[in-house]
């Protein structure tokens, strides 16, 4: 049984703030990733939130393995 893939979670608190990395979730598809991120990272009333599959991230500063950005 697999936990699915890892999605990195990004969110913006106010319209004039940068989108920042707030954590990560495991999910078997995009819809579940959205639900998990929304319910787990509920510490703010985000004006914007999105998830990105970790596998889609292209690292520039790290030649080797991707760092784990958050949690």
């Amino acid at each position: 049984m697999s936990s699915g893939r890892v999605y990195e979670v990004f969110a913006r608190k106010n319209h004039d703030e940068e989108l920042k990395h707030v954590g990560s979730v495991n999910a078997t598809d995009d819809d579940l990733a959205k639900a998990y991120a929304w319910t787990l990272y509920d510490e703010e009333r985000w004006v914007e939130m999105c998830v990105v599959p970790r596998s889609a991230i292209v690292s520039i500063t790290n030649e080797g393995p991707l760092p784990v950005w958050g949690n």
Partner: protein
Amino acid sequence: MTPKPLDPAEQALIARINDGLMIETVADMTPGYKKALLTQLTVQGDTELMSAPAYYLAARDAPTINSRIAVTAIVHDELGHANIAYRIMEDLGADKRQLVYGRQPHEFKHPYGFDQPLENWAEMVVANGFFDRAGITLLSDVHQNTSYGPLKRALVKVDREEVLHLRHGESWMKRLAKAGGEARDALQRTVDWMFPMTLEWFGLPDDLKRHSGQLAYRLKGLTNDQLRQTWMAATVPLCEGIGVEVPAHFDEATDAYVIDFPFPCQYDPNAKRWLFDEPLTWDQVFDRWKARGPMNERYVEMIQGTFGSVVAN
């Protein structure tokens, strides 16, 4: 004995960490570092996870709808915090499903305090006031000092939410004290067993502690005794301020809190009573912890449900 003193790779990493190196990937780690970090995260995740069923059952004792919603929100937070710890462990090669569903009740590494039943509202809110204060004491030290970048960042959210739990507990402790009568008696009875329980939570005193990998790798910054003092520095004045007695006091001469009973000593979990006339060695305390407390199986069963056996078998 995590860092092998003679292993040059471990020594080199410890030296670089002392110079301020932050670890970001598994590739940066030595085996000793990774093992110490995984142990720390297991305890952290298991503690958060096992607080959830304990608080969930106690939510039934909430005196109002609002306070019941508050406890339910705390349960939600704690499960989230457990997920965060296990999520990091997965990036280090652990299997979250195995961690949650594939272990026997006695294999979880949470403190003995979360093997105990919370049987009334006073016990629920003192658990918030004492156990969550212990959690924030331990985790804010990790947050400030850890050499592992992903954990440092993850703890921003966790620390913030733990502070809310703590405030919930402390404000209710004040209300129960002010109410007097039966509410106040229940509060005092709860403090009587939870105060020593939380002191024990911080583990071996420094003079008995073997060399700590967690300190050497800067996975934490303060020693067990320093953390125990930090907890008492917040908790003893809180209790004194609301007229609740605790078996510890501040000693001006040594500028430290002093425990006023033979520590550690035996506990009767069924009577919820500390036996101050039965002092123990720490090895005997570890035996009591390993035997686990009365609610261990029930709590793990609540978490795993029927799914537990599916993954385990």
